[in-house]
């Protein structure tokens, strides 16, 4: 087929560039500037899909964002994307698309049997039928419905496209480039305001592209082109096509999705697929226009039934005839405009006007052209299955209740116009309470809530002259407020034909004995009868009716169906439409790719990656890394074919036997400075800090006000008024905020400054019995003997010319030190330690060995300080001062926290000394007890004790203090394990703590 429905001349497509594309496997041709919809229609293809519930054949209904039917699966550059509206997808060379919702194919669809079962599939069918038995839902009903329902299929592959986010600020943001948008933008731009003009379609101009008007002695289309060309030259203006403003959020933040590459065969190098703009606008001018609404009649979903404005757009923009024997069914003058366009292109339409008599300049023109007009006539039903073949028409009484004799007339398309619905979504999202405008039978924005104004058709103003006047004025006044400039603009003369009042008629009654489906919502197959059922069953609120029937849901969000739905409810309920109200308009206005919302924050980019200055060394030495918050830390250093277990055991053993070195740069570090620094620490930590001498470190625990342990760490007094605080890696940021909170809000009288120094220092923990020997080699000029640098001592040292801080602190429970140097020297320090440590058999150790060492020593970490434990639970009550007050102290008096059988940390060893206990296992008394088996505690951390060569775990256990020696069971239903265990002390190795002081 060779574009048999393309007219010879006309349209805005580029006829010099022919494009080939595939639909359902068949090759067709179109032109550059086509949409997939217009190109298919040019080839006479009307059948594009099957409906959601009944699998009825569906064609094209609109020509843009309102399209409820023509949803396709798109294939582009090896990727696939579901639920693309064919009316929005621009054609490119090699485009491939397929119908959705049909099997095996669109012409023969097995699901169409639902069409004959439709009396069994009314509103609420699924709710009623699949309620019982309950157990059937997940196994049988849900998978079946999932398969039968839904539209396209999402790709399961990684999306190789790139999406960007952009933040922008402007004086005026203008949504829509129709006449009101152009006038508003132009006036504001002339006043020097920073303007962003957004248009969702590829072409600017909105209704001016298809209407027969003159502005300032040129056609509307030419005027629009001139304005856009001038705006593009202005430095204070950004004009964006293919850009949909889909959400209006708080404080004049709007979000726009720019389709950068969807119209191209593949995304250009370095270009994103889509760009999401977060725009903070001082003023917003909503010029989103209006969408034609249908009149409801029998079988009104048959392919070939479409909005009259769409038929006109296909003709004027794309040069495509949607039919050669069109029937126009209208209740207003818009249908006549479409009929006139047909007639001008040599096609004879028949116009059915529901009004008894209507007179206007437009109707006069139609009459003068000799168009066949039938007044007080309606379409009763479309006939034809996969395409309209004819229409049953009849005269209608003045009260619109009685149909005359039914006649059948041949036609190949039915262009329907039930008047216009202002697109008020953005205004409503901003918080604007909409109001019902009787003259147009639709809602328009009411009082502005944020700095927004709605103009033109979106505000229910359909006269071009009035639209331009109000929009020039609004653009000029709003910008004047901001720029304080007032450049006068000559408002051009407008020539437009006057139209007459529309008819409130919206739904054709059923003829006697006929039971045609009359669809309200085409995407979800919601017919008049479904809404009637919902109301009969007692659903009253329009929000409930929507959810029960699915009216107005899915990808088109009821852009063509909402108002007719309200009309129906108001008629049955005998209320006026404003009393029924409308459902809430929520963002997004139109579907937005998840990829665009996510932007660049995918995979490794979803959070920053922090690396220590020694990272490269770790990489070169076969470190296997693990995510520790945002840090990458070596988990273990792989030797040969070792696995995690073997490597970490080797590393931990070497610390106990010789000496090991661990990168501890990631620990949070905070400088606390000022004359009241000691006082602050004394209030923040549970233990006493006022008497800590210079050159000494102390371990501290800090609580939240509710008594729960927040963090722990070692803080060192560097000089009189200077402390170096360390926090856990995970809590570093929270602890800083915590300190700032108290300093700024609670105790502003304290003269203290806090600042994060985590990035400034590189840290290496040197641990093991031979660590002192190594330290002597590293710092030959310092006295690092047990007397010179005792446990919890601190000194400065000279590391081969680099200033270093030496702390004698231990997490591993061995004799240990921590050396800090400025970050830039981190790698230098590390290499010196490795080099000097060679003779002591030094080995680097990762976080896994670090965990092993601390677990068998009974040192608590994040898995015990889990936001649910108090100092007692962690056997840290010795650090809780009885004399002074501190943050959270009062909470420790709570009865639950002082209970006799309060939970407490214990050690756990499997009776067989073989089976490792999964972390998270529950401790229970009786492994055979009926479920839910009473839980006494849980395993917080597990390791393989290198000291005793058997598994060892820490647990938080109820009445833990009195449970030592008890036999319990560790149960892990996840791992399907039941392990008999013995409760022991949490200090499994060196319970007296002699090693750290040796």
């Amino acid at each position, binding site marked *: 087929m060779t574009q048999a429905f393309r007219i010879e001349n006309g349209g805005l497509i580029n006829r010099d560039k022919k494009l080939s594309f595939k639909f359902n496997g068949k090759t067709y041709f179109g032109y550059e500037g086509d949409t997939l919809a217009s190109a298919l229609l040019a080839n006479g293809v009307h059948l594009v899909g099957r409906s959601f519930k009944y699998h009825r054949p569906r064609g094209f209904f609109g020509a843009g964002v309102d399209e409820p039917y023509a949803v396709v699966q798109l294939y582009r550059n090896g990727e696939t994307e579901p639920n693309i509206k064919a009316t929005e997808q621009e054609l490119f060379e090699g485009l491939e698309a397929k119908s959705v919702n049909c099997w095996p194919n669109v012409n023969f669809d097995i699901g169409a049997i639902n069409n004959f079962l439709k009396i069994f599939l009314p509103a609420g069918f699924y709710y009623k039928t699949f309620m019982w038995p309950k157990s059937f839902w997940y196994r049988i009903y849900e998978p079946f419905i999932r398969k039968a329902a839904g539209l396209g299929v999402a790709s399961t592959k990684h999306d190789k496209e790139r999406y960007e986010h952009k*933040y922008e600020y402007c004086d005026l943001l203008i949504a829509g480039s129709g006449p009101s948008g152009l006038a508003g933008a132009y006036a504001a731009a002339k006043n020097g305001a920073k303007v962003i003009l957004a248009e969702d379609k590829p072409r600017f101009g909105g209704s001016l592209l298809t209407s027969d008007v003159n502005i300032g002695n040129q056609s509307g289309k030419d005027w629009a082109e001139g304005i856009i060309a001038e705006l593009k030259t202005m430095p204070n203006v950004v004009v964006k096509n293919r850009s949909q403003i889909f959400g209006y*959020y*708080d*404080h*004049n*933040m709007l979000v726009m999705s720019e389709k950068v590459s969807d119209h191209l065969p593949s995304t250009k190098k370095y270009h994103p697929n889509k760009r999401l703009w*977060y725009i*903070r606008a001082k003023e917003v001018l909503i010029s989103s226009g209006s969408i034609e609404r249908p009149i409801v009649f029998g079988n009104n979903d048959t392919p070939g039934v479409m909005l009259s404005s769409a038929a006109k757009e296909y003709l004027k923009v794309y040069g495509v005839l949607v039919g050669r024997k069109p029937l126009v069914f209208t209740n207003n003058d818009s249908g006549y405009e479409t009929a006139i366009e047909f007639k001008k292109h040599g096609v004879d339409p028949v116009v059915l006007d529901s009004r008894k008599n209507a007179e206007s300049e437009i109707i006069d023109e139609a009459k003068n052209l000799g168009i066949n007009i039938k007044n007080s006539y309606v379409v009763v039903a479309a006939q034809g299955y996969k395409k309209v073949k004819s229409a049953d028409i009849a005269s209608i009484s003045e009260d619109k209740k009685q149909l005359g004799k039914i006649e059948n007339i041949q036609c190949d398309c039915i262009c329907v116009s039930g008047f216009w619905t202002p697109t008020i979504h953005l205004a409503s999202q901003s*918080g604007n309470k909409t109001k019902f405008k009787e003259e147009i039978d639709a809602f328009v924005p009411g009082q502005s809530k944020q700095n927004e104004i709605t103009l033109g058709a979106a505000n229910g103003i359909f006269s071009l002259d009035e639209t331009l006047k109000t929009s020039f004025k609004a653009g000029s006044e709003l910008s004047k407020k901001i720029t304080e400039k007032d450049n006068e603009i000559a408002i051009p003369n407008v020539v437009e034909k006057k139209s007459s009042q529309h008819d409130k008629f919206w739904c054709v009654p059923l003829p006697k004995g006929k039971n045609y489906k009359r669809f309200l919502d085409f995407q979800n197959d919601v017919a008049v009868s479904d809404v009637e059922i919902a109301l009969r069953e007692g659903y009253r609120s329009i929000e409930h009716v929507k959810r029960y029937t699915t009216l107005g849901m899915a990808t088109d969000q009821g852009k063509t169906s909402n108002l007719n739905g309200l009309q129906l409810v108001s008629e049955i309920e005998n209320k006026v439409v404003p009393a029924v109200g409308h459902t809430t308009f929520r963002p997004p206005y139109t579907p937005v790719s998840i990829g665009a919302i996510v932007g660049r924050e995918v995979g490794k980019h979803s959070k920053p990656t922090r690396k220590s200055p020694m990272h490269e060394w770790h990489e070169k030495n076969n470190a296997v890394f693990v995510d520790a918050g945002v840090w990458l830390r070596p988990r273990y250093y792989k030797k040969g074919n070792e696995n995690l277990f073997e490597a970490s055991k080797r590393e931990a053993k070497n610390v106990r036997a010789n000496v090991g070195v661990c990168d501890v740069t990631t620990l949070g570090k905070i400088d606390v400075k000022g004359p009241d620094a000691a006082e602050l620490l004394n*209030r923040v930590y549970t233990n006493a800090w006022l008497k800590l001498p210079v050159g000494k470190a102390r371990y501290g625990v800090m609580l939240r*006000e*509710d008594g729960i342990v927040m963090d722990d760490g070692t803080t060192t007094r560097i000089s009189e008024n200077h402390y170096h605080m360390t926090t856990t890696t995970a809590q570093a940021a929270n602890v800083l*905020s915590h300190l*700032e*909170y108290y300093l*700024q*809000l*609670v105790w*502003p009288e304290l003269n203290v400054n806090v600042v994060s120094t985590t990035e400034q220092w590189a840290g290496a923990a040197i641990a093991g019995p031979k660590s002192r020997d190594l330290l002597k080699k590293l710092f030959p000029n310092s006295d690092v003997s047990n007397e010179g640098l005792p446990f919890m001592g601190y000194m400065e040292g000279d590391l081969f010319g680099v200033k270093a801080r030496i702390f004698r602190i231990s997490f591993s429970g061995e004799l240990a030190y921590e050396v800090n140097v400025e970050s830039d020297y981190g790698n230098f320090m590390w290499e010196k330690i490795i080099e000097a440590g060679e003779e002591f058999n030094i080995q680097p150790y990762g976080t896994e060995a670090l965990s092993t060492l601390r677990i068998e020593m009974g040192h608590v970490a994040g898995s015990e300080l889990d936001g649910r434990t108090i100092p007692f639970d962690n056997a840290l009550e010795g650090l809780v001062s009885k004399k*002074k*007050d501190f943050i959270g102290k*009062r*909470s420790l008096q709570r009865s639950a926290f002082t209970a006799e059988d309060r939970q407490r940390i214990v050690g756990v060893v499997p009776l067989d000394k073989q089976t490792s206990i999964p972390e998270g296992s529950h401790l229970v008394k009786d492994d055979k007890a009926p479920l839910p088996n009473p839980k006494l505690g849980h395993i917080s951390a597990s390791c393989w004790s290198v000291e005793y060569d058997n598994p060892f775990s820490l647990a938080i256990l109820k009445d833990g203090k009195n449970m030592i020696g008890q036999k319990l069971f560790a149960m892990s239903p996840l791992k399907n394990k039941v392990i008999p265990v013995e409760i022991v002390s949490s200090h499994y190795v060196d319970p007296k703590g002699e090693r750290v002081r040796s």
Partner: protein
Amino acid sequence: MLYINCPHCGMRSQNEFSYGGDASVKRPELNKEVTDQEWDNFVYNRKSIRGKHLELWQHISGCRQWIKVERDTATHEIFRTFKADEEVA
């Protein structure tokens, strides 16, 4: 996304801030006897106000200052903002 006027930095988007709860809560003084009820009110009990609410925010990705924001919890309208040590009249 809210647009918050940081009294130190000017208008900034919400994603630079973190929320800190009711600003009218006053911590009992240190070393002062407080009843269980008073302590519970300080730690746990908060009014879920619909309407004007004075709350704390920290300009965490900016000046790191804690500030007070007077905001309508229903409409998100922000009326005034204050420095930490500013008295709210």
